[in-house]
């Protein structure tokens, strides 16, 4: 897994809703192998942004030599990226991190919260041939915050929760009835409270569970030690190099 830093041109810029968008980036020349769960670190050339900004790889296409990012405009850097145009170039460090493991399984559950759904699409595509029965569970405040579930048609059975019951079951992903099913594995990505609840649920049920973390990063390639997570053995491990995907049972929750 060789990392590179490259200037990539934006080949597509797709609006998802007011504050979510998908950027597709193309790379000429050698194109590295990309695993689901890996991420990129993007340089944002804007007055008030200094460090790079990390984003999960949402999809990748080796033939097209391209990959895409699903981004939520939350602050200075992401808003600046939102205003980029097709043809603009971005300086990107990639692919970073370890990625999810891709075992053969009977029935797995993918759980995404917020932009945590980003890596799950590429993951579902890569699991397709290996897993019999893939389920996707996503939750949000209300129907209009549920993103991109239609992309999973033919890939996974989609389950939804909304806090206001405007779509799917009422409540949080952690209360959804699908969790009563027996899964061989859970893959998850999202805000800390959600991943934590799921990790504890999985540990409790003794289901193998891989969690992708979104810790704040400075370098993205393992040298600054800013992005650490604590393991069960009270060691601090880098989420950018040793993660972002961890086996839930290895971490201190």
């Amino acid at each position, binding site marked *: 897994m*060789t*990392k*590179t*830093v490259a200037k990539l041109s934006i080949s597509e810029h797709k609006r998802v809703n007011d504050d979510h968008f998908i950027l597709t980036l193309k790379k000429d020349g050698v194109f590295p192998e990309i695993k689901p769960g890996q991420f990129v670190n993007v*340089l944002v050339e804007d007055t*008030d*942004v*200094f*460090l*790079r900004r990390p984003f999960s790889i949402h999809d990748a296409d080796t033939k097209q030599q391209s990959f895409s990012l699903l981004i939520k405009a939350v602050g200075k850097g992401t808003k600046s990226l939102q205003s980029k145009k097709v043809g603009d170039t971005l*300086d990107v*460090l990639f692919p970073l991190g370890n990625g999810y493991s891709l075992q053969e399984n009977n029935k797995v559950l993918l759980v995404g919260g917020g932009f945590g759904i980003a890596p799950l699409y590429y993951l579902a595509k890569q699991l397709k041939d290996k897993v019999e029965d893939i389920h996707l569970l996503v939750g949000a405040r209300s129907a209009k915050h549920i993103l991109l579930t239609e992309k999973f048609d033919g890939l996974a059975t989609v389950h939804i929760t909304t806090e206001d019951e405007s779509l799917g079951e009422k409540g949080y992903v952690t209360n959804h009835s699908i969790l009563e099913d027996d899964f061989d594995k859970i893959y998850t990505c999202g805000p800390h409270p959600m991943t934590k609840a799921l990790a504890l649920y999985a540990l409790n049920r003794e289901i193998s569970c891989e969690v992708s973390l979104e*810790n*704040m*990063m*400075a*370098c*993205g*390639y*393992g*040298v*600054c*030690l*800013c*992005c*650490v*997570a*604590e393991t069960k053995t*009270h*060691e*601090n491990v880098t989420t950018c*190099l040793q993660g972002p995907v961890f086996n839930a049972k290895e971490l201190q929750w």
Partner: protein
Amino acid sequence: MVNLAINLNGLILKNPVILASGTAGYGYEYDDFIDVNQLGGVSVKGTTLHNRAGNAYPRMAETPKGMLNAVGLQNKGIDYFIENIYPRLQEYDTTMILNASGSTIDDYVALCEKANELEHIPAIELNVSCPNVKEGGMAFGVSCAGVSEVVKEVRKVYHKHLMVKLSPNVTDIVEIAKAAEAEGADSLSLINTLLGMAINAETQRPVLSTITGGLSGPAIKPVALRMVWQVSNAVNIPIVGMGGIMNTTDAIEFFLAGASAIQIGTANFINPQVSIEIINGIEDYLKKYNYTDIQQIIGKLKTT
């Protein structure tokens, strides 16, 4: 042809560009991005006598043209280093420098004694200036007495190149520099991070788990340049300058101010290839102005 090699009071660097401790990892993390052997040197992650888990997450805050860190010297201790990391470092053809930290004089001495045996490591950078742990040495680094004591004791057991890394969080860095020189430091490196703080106005909480942390990056360059200039005018040992160097122009400024070599820290996070770009840029600058040796610009700031 232009000569970029530097003799740092006996320590030979193939060029004056070193990756700064805490941003360099152990060098090999850069293999994907650059040919590490082209570097003048690598100052590896701050090492202590014993294993240190470091501070709790979050350890980082972005600030205007800079960042705060509160890593807290996370490392597995010198023995682990010698057994597991040092063998890999021997494969590199660049000057490996061990950044050494401690919380007591005894720790520093024990650590440096072990470092003295490492054939492939010709120098230590004695960190008496880490602001992020109570026992990070900054207590030593901010007084002349403290610096004198540490350097004196370490000097007794460490017989190779002893570089002392100074804290900028002092009223008068010149007197601290002179104290280190007087006790036998072979060179001085400066600056370590400035003590700073970041607050999240929405959560009304500090951003860092430790409340305060160390400020690095371009924001501190003016302070770093000033200190390098002041110290280089006051001591006779060479100086390794750092603090906010992002590009060739910044590097040249440090040489003019009196630095014989430079370290690249935070800039690596923005561009992991920047060190090599700067080495090439220095060569271009020297050629452009018809110099034949990097030595010809060191300390050559024109002030009249």
